[in-house]
């Protein structure tokens, strides 16, 4: 974790309310892991007062960090008005990233489920997953067709125009499927419907689902992952102040299990505790989160 001054290289509208911020930072590009975030002071003044937590979208060489963000409030609105050459104060990288695992898996071992702006940080993940999944086990000859071993990415959006990151995922060699709520592109419906279909058919020996998107979608994905007994990691968002675990302002309810005796039988008793999205997350296992 560092506090850095960065100079904006680019800050442009991608489409609708979505903007792309680019800046050079050797420290961040070298140390950041997928799923981690930065806390940006978007103005020099008192308004808005707090830093804004934003996920890292991708790292492009040499040392260029990209953040893809949606204008949703005062902070992101102010950020969208900053110009190239201006300097921002950044703290990062923050939080724990995704657990990428270590094994080299078989076909389609990783499924990325993205909803709306949630696609942004999953691109960084895909950047790091690609070599992992594509590499055959040591000492063996890779006979797999070239499409196997690639992460499968399911991108959901309300409409064709709100769709994000399709090209980025494809350029990284991912197998990409599109779902729009209005059917203006790809499958019509919810991305979670497609996830169920996928789990029912071609990818039955899945390793892990990685997902980021609106809370309702995350909840549905978590439910599906439980039903199909597939490990699932969720990247969560929450209002934050400090971003480092000091203020205790971004709690999420998680299950805690401890052994106890019921009569003569030892059972696992489930209770809950608060964990902080900034420090304990922002990635959580789907089976530990309690949805309110």
């Amino acid at each position, binding site marked *: 974790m560092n506090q850095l001054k960065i100079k904006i290289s680019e800050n442009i509208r991608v489409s609708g309310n979505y903007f792309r911020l680019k800046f050079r930072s050797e420290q961040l590009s070298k140390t950041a892991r997928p799923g981690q975030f930065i806390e940006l002071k978007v103005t020099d003044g008192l*308004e808005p*007062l707090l830093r804004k937590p934003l996920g890292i979208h991708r790292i492009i060489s040499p040392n260029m960090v990209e953040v893809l963000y949606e204008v949703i409030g005062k902070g992101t609105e102010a950020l969208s008005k900053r110009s190239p050459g201006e300097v921002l104060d950044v703290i990062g990288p923050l939080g724990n990233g995704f657990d990428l695992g270590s094994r080299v898996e078989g076909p389609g071992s990783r499924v990325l489920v993205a909803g709306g702006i949630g696609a942004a940080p999953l691109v960084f993940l895909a950047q790091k997953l690609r070599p992992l999944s594509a590499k055959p086990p040591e000492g063996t000859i890779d006979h797999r067709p070239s499409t196997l071993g690639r992460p499968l990415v399911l991108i959901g959006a309300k409409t064709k125009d709100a769709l994000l990151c399709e090209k980025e995922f494809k350029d990284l060699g991912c197998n990409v499927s599109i779902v729009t709520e209005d059917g203006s592109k790809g499958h019509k419906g919810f991305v979670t419907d497609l996830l169920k279909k996928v789990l029912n058919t071609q990818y039955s020996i899945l390793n892990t689902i990685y997902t980021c998107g609106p809370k309702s979608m995350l909840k549905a994905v978590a439910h599906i992952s439980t039903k199909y007994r597939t490990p699932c990691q969720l990247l969560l968002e929450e209002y934050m102040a400090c971003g480092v*675990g*000091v*203020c205790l*302002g*971004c709690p999420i309810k998680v299950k805690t299990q401890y052994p106890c005796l019921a009569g003569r039988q030892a059972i696992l008793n489930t209770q809950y505790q608060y964990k902080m999205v900034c420090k304990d997350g922002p990635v959580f296992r789907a089976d530990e989160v309690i949805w309110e």
Partner: protein
Amino acid sequence: MNTSVKVGRIRLKNPVIAASGTFGVEYNELVDIESLGAVVAKTITLNAREGNPPPRLVETPAGMLNSIGLENAGLQDFINKKLPAYLKLKVPVIASISAETAGELMELAKRLDKTAVEGIELNLSCPNIRSGTLISQDPKATYEAVRQVKKATEKTVIAKLSPNVTDIRVFAKAAEEGGADAVSLINTFFAMAVDIEKRRPLLGNITGGLSGPPIKPIALKMVWDAFNEVDIPIIGIGGIMTYKDAMEFIICGATAIQVGTANFINPQVTVEIIDGIRQYMTRKNINSLKKLIGSLEVR
């Protein structure tokens, strides 16, 4: 140049203290904690508290509301884990304690008396654990709480006061009469914010406490009032973002100051304030900070 000040028996190498609940060893990677005057640890209670339901934070114009609800792992965890981590960083630590009864406060003070903390701040004013009125909204209860704690410990005792009162002087006086070595003021203001589309409160706890730049002028006036009422040192708190803010408090009578919300915005702010105070003293050709405390010219 001498920036040191004394609060009770604590000698601070400079008057800049990190406020309770806004600072932690987590910041060690970003700021030279050793250079601070002191750190007030997050408030602890005898037993662990899970805190309030989310959302716990709302941003307001130039400020913020919080309703953390004193989430903490309890006294024993503080003694076993949090305190040693601070002491490793070679910074004077002031514990912050809260309880619903004077008996519990005494127990906390008694146990902390045997530790390496430099002092104890009584958080009599957290707005987020409601069971009727706050201790620091009742002069008799304030007096009694301080008196009991003083009996239980030899450590420097600081009473942290609430601004949610009609006349702060009454409460500063009550703390002084109870035997407090110092008072710190102010804690946050009771406050709330509403989502008008859903007609729901924006905080899970419905109400919370307002902090940051919006409360600074009010805090300053309260420090000035208290300074004119009591003889014990005053620690000024409320929306301090820069050395200029800090100097205003010191000139109005604060012996030391605490920085809270500003840590979230700039973790290095405390160190920058210390540098700023030193530069101010050089510019004004003043060699001892003590000369500036309460130096407000009113005629």
